[in-house]
């Protein structure tokens, strides 16, 4: 599975320009790179949860999607995709269809970690041959930056505002990739926009072309919710990985594999400092919150290293 950046970027787009997503948003970057992993000759049906991605890319009578596409509701992209995939199996069995189709669902963290969690868990457990891609921007951005169970601790959101009595969200974030891995699915990968998209591309390729249910968790920053300057998105992703806030790993048939270990693990501040949602943490007197965050990142990183060392 060699990765040639130039060649990849030269592929015909299956997600076309002209949509209404913000400049500097991670979601369309995730989508384009996942779809690039499809072989040209293969067809796909894309399912999308209600989200910024859906309402900004498929507004009647326009669509940015070259492949067949279905939006159903907020909490049921996985169940919907499982229905499409079941239809494919049924029609294939009856000889009504010859072509090879792949089934890819996209949802934000709201539609995946929270309201769509049951639907996702059910579809993964049933073993449909599909890929669910969560573009994780760590809050309900479509409704205006409310906290989700993917929101990092101490982030300022509109339902966890930092104030005189609160340093932002009080809870840790849920580790969804690990939870889905515990479903014993065929493939789980966690990634973001680093290494010229190589890690994302290879994981998308494995997820799509491994038979059975697969899950990709893609950290996809949101300039409105994270409050960064749009061009900084790639640096922020890099810092998420270099600080071990967002490690790159995959789980294949129950085997945990660490895909990248920073030569020198950077302090969590390097990830936080360019984001407005954490600016309150840098005020005098709030050092303890950053220390607490560092502690949690360290603990999770050690846990992950342990899981990956069991091979």
């Amino acid at each position, binding site marked *: 599975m060699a990765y040639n950046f130039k060649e990849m970027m030269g592929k015909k787009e299956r997600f076309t320009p002209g949509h209404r997503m913000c400049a500097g948003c991670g979601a369309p970057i995730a989508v384009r790179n996942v779809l690039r992993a499809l072989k040209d000759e293969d067809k796909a049906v894309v399912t999308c949860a209600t989200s910024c991605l859906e309402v900004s890319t498929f507004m009647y009578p326009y669509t940015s999607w070259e492949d067949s596409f279905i939006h159903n509701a907020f909490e049921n992209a996985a*169940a919907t995709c*499982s229905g499409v995939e*079941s239809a494919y199996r049924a029609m294939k069995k009856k000889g009504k269809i010859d072509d090879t189709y792949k089934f890819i669902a996209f949802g934000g963290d709201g539609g995946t970690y929270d309201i769509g969690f*049951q639907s996702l868990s059910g579809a993964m457990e049933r073993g449909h041959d599909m890929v669910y891609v969560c573009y994780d921007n760590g809050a309900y951005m479509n409704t205006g930056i409310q906290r989700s169970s993917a929101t990092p601790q101490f982030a300022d959101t509109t339902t966890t505002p930092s104030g005189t009595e609160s340093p932002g969200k009080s809870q840790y974030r849920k580790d969804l990739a690990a939870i889905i891995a515990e479903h014993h699915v065929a493939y789980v990968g966690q990634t973001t926009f680093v290494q010229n998209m190589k890690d994302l591309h290879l994981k998308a390729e494995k997820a799509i072309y491994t038979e059975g249910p697969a899950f990709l968790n893609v950290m996809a920053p949101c300039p409105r919710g994270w409050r960064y300057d749009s061009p900084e998105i790639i640096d922020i992703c890099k810092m998420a990985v270099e600080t071990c806030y967002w490690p790159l790993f995959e789980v294949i048939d129950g085997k945990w594999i660490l895909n990248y270990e920073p030569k020198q693990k950077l302090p969590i501040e390097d990830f936080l400092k360019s984001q407005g949602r954490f600016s309150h943490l840098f005020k005098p007197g709030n050092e303890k919150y950053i220390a607490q965050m560092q502690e949690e990142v360290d603990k999770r990183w050690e846990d992950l290293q342990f899981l990956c060392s069991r091979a």
Partner: protein
Amino acid sequence: MAIRDRLSGNEAIAKAMRQVCADVMPAYPITPSTELPQYFSSFVANGQTETVFVPVESEHSAMSACIGSEAAGARTMSATSSCGLAYMWEMLYVAASNRLPIALAVVNRALSGPININCDHSDAMGARDSGWIQIFAETNQEAYDNFVQAYRIAEHEDVKIPIMICQDGFITSHGVQNIELLEDDVVKNFVGEYNPTSWLLNPEHPEAVGPYTNPPYYMEAKYSQMVGMNNAKKVAVEVGAEFEKISGRKYGLFEEYKTEDADYIMVIMGSAAGTGKDTVDGLREQGVKAGLLKIRMFRPFPGEEIAQALKNAKVIACMDRTESYNSQDGPIGNDVKAALFNAGMAPKVLNYVYGLAGRDVTVESLGSVFEDMQEVDKSGNVGDTYRYLSLRG
């Protein structure tokens, strides 16, 4: 050659489900429709069907998967009851607005709360504005026959609307009755192949389903759904006539029982219509001009036709097996009165809430409704127009 058998309503629907041979069936068990996914799973396990069964983790996912499957181009069906139908509620609207002709076997049961597993129509009535065709059955035979006709109505090019085939929980779903089944190939030929006009798995033309729809388009989409729904009346009558040719059994929008010269007509739906007919027979023997109108198709509501059928009645009693809390009538009472008003008619109309959560419906209890109608006729005083039947003192 028709096959004579003795089956419960659920067994009968399961037979019909196997015979119509849909492509996909996502379903989640709930009393009293649980037997449908059970029977169907055993058909799959024993190689008696090609249908792909999807054992989803909830009714919400059942309807979500139905939408995905039907949109993909596969004929799709499911089954549910009560809270299961309520849990599907959000997705029912989406299925209808996407014009996906899914068939859903509804085994009517009271909605919680308080929780209760027995029959009433509160589940289906909760979904009456969702944009689905709703057809109700009096007997197991009707439940079977209605399911065989379902896709012909729903998939018709002038309709393209999902359809609920309703029967009464336990009363018909678990009660065993004599039944006449059609042969597999007769049903197969009658139902025919599903040929969608646009679908996701069309290799020649990618399809996009479920767009964000701004105000310039939303109302037109709803209007078009309304037109499709209205067309279902005409199509149901045509399909009913064709079905008569293969079965000898006649189906229309509703059934009139001794209404032609009736002074007192009961409008009722579901299994209690059978008890109502017995009641009418007894009253006729006593010389009372009693009649009964049994609604088969509740959505779309055949208002004009029903008003015509009621035009000579002196007093009408509308029987609602649900409470709708509008303080003046139930869903059937509401729709019948609107139909009469639109037809310029103003007869005396009583409205009863009856049989909630399996409360017994007997010849005596329905007989008391006809007594009330005669009393209103005699006194000229309609009194309380909204009444509860068989309420304990």
